[in-house]
């Protein structure tokens, strides 16, 4: 099978959907000639023209709101928000408008829009360009929240997002854009709400998503050398969440470690831990559920300080070891 990057996978998903559905269009800051801040949309302007690949001014509240209006009138906009941190200046549309229209309007409205944005740290971009804020979105009924970890998942999940009739927050991982993976040439989509067992194992379930999937897989390889067989589950979508796969896995392994890049305190890991605790899996646990996440600090600029904010492979290995003792 051919290998492409995560960034190429995102572009392919958008381009394929735009080719087959004239209602789909794409807008965002510097997505045209510039090709997007992360180079995702290189070449799309030439293929689709400036009406369907529309550069926006630095006016997030304006163009994210416009996406809501376009969606509710029958268009299917994809919006690129350059950094996920910028959702703070258009949060009204993400929180009060897009996810509530259908409900408030008695089921008559549909808001088929995708908000794609680059999330996560590790790039030296400091406190306002490095956050992982997915928990905030996942807290809002009416939204769907996707965090893909591989090129294959990015493409299949984004195609599903574009075809979905609801507002979807699609959180791409900056540090994964250049990673490569197998992606078939043939058409495929990946349904929401289906977790993916990235590595089967018998001794401990590592529940994770986004960039931490890679680190968890590396940790699992190291643990295997010690005779600990970890299962790595990538939840892929936070909302809807595939609770059944998580519960089933923990019942099997009897141990659970949760890993995410977002701040640990009040992070999505709390929801995942509660999912286990509130289910029958609780009675199978041989050790308390452990959570790993970023420290409670704004992301610092200094590279050594920044690196130490996030969970590391060594910490994941250590956490799994502790559950086995």
């Amino acid at each position, binding site marked *: 099978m051919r290998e492409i990057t995560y960034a190429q996978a995102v572009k392919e998903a958008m381009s394929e959907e735009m080719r087959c559905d004239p209602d789909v269009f794409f807008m965002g800051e510097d997505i045209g000639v510039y090709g997007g801040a992360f180079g995702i949309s290189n070449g799309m302007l030439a293929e689709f023209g400036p009406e369907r690949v529309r550069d926006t001014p630095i006016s997030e509240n304006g163009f994210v*709101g416009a996406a*809501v209006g376009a969606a509710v009138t029958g*268009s299917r906009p994809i919006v690129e928000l350059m950094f996920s941190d910028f959702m703070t200046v258009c949060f009204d549309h993400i929180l009060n408008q897009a996810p509530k229209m*259908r409900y408030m309007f*008695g089921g*008559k*409205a549909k808001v088929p829009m995708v908000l794609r944005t680059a999330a996560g740290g590790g790039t030296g971009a400091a406190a306002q360009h490095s956050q992982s804020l997915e928990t905030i979105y996942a807290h809002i009924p009416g939204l769907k929240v996707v965090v893909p970890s591989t090129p294959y998942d990015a493409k299949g999940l984004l195609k599903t997002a574009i075809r979905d009739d609801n507002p979807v927050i699609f959180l791409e991982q900056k540090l994964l854009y250049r990673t490569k993976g197998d992606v078939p040439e043939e058409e495929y989509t990946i349904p929401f709400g289906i977790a993916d067992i990235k590595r089967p194992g018998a001794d401990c379930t590592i529940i994770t998503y986004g960039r931490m999937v890679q680190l968890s897989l590396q940790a699992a390889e190291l643990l295997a050398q010690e005779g600990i067989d970890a299962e790595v589950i990538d939840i892929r979508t936070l909302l809807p969440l595939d609770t059944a796969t998580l519960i089933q896995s923990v019942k099997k392994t009897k141990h659970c470690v949760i890993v995410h890049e977002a701040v640990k305190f009040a992070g999505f890991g709390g929801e995942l831990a509660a999912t286990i605790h509130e289910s029958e899996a609780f009675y199978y646990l041989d050790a308390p559920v452990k959570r790993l996440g970023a420290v409670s600090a704004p992301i610092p600029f200094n590279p050594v300080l920044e690196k130490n904010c996030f969970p590391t492979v060594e910490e994941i290995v250590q956490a799994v070891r502790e559950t086995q003792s």
Partner: protein
Amino acid sequence: MPTTHPKALHKEFLSKMLLARKFEEQVQTLFAQGLVHGTTHLGIGEEATAVGTILAAEPQDYLLATHRGHNHALAKGVDINAMMAEILAKSDGVCKGKGGSMHIADLDKGILGANGILGSSAPIACGAGMTIRRRGEDRIVLCFFGDGAANLGAVHEAMNLAALWNLPVLFVLVNNTYGMSLHISKASSDPDLTKRAYPFGIPAETVDGNDVIAVYDTVKHARDYVVEHGPMLIVENTYRISGHSKSDGNLYRTKAEIAEWREKCPILRHKKYLLDKEIFTAEAIDEMDKETTAIIEAAVAYGKASPEPSLDTILTDIYA
């Protein structure tokens, strides 16, 4: 000077304004009786802005209303029974009882919603305009907002986008003099709100918002301009006779001021015009009044008889 408007249009002006007024007075009464929960924002005194504007537009035009949006919804033709049922939070409400006064919407009529967040309708209006342009449709977007919302960044961002992308959006600024309690002179550095459009190259006009004919004529021309050239702003100056919401003690204005504006009521004014010009007799106007009262009474009966939404609807219509 003889009127240039057909008699049927004058009848529609008056009957729609009466419908809006009597609807809101009825809502006030139901509120006092404890039959309406939550809150409502009434636009008593502002009827000519909604009716004149919406009758000058075309039925296929989209509309975004403000949180004070009963007038807009009724003028645009939302079923009055479904409106009243919604105010009463019933299952036959236009939003199945889940939106209420502040979120009246009817997509079948092109109403993309009243909005509880001020100013947010403006960027949404731009997006509706994008769909219209993309599909080459023969319609525009009426984007209502108030003098209070005029100070929001969202409105300025939207005006920039509408001008930049040449979107068919008519910005309708209903200046009702107060943003809740704050007089426009205490909220806007320059109370001439037409100037808000100029930095974006958007033309603007002011009209007496209590003169339904003037509003209609102004918007008729404005709509033609929007279809041909792109966005425009109309500032419709009026006055909110009713309080901001149910909790308003009117501490920020005098009784004399309110009384003065009651004299300038757009409905009284239009009735007087119709009599002076001998377009309708007093008896005919009285008949319209009675017909409207009967429609409202029927709507209240419909709303009261409508069942409460079933509990399982808490979790329906969240996702498509």
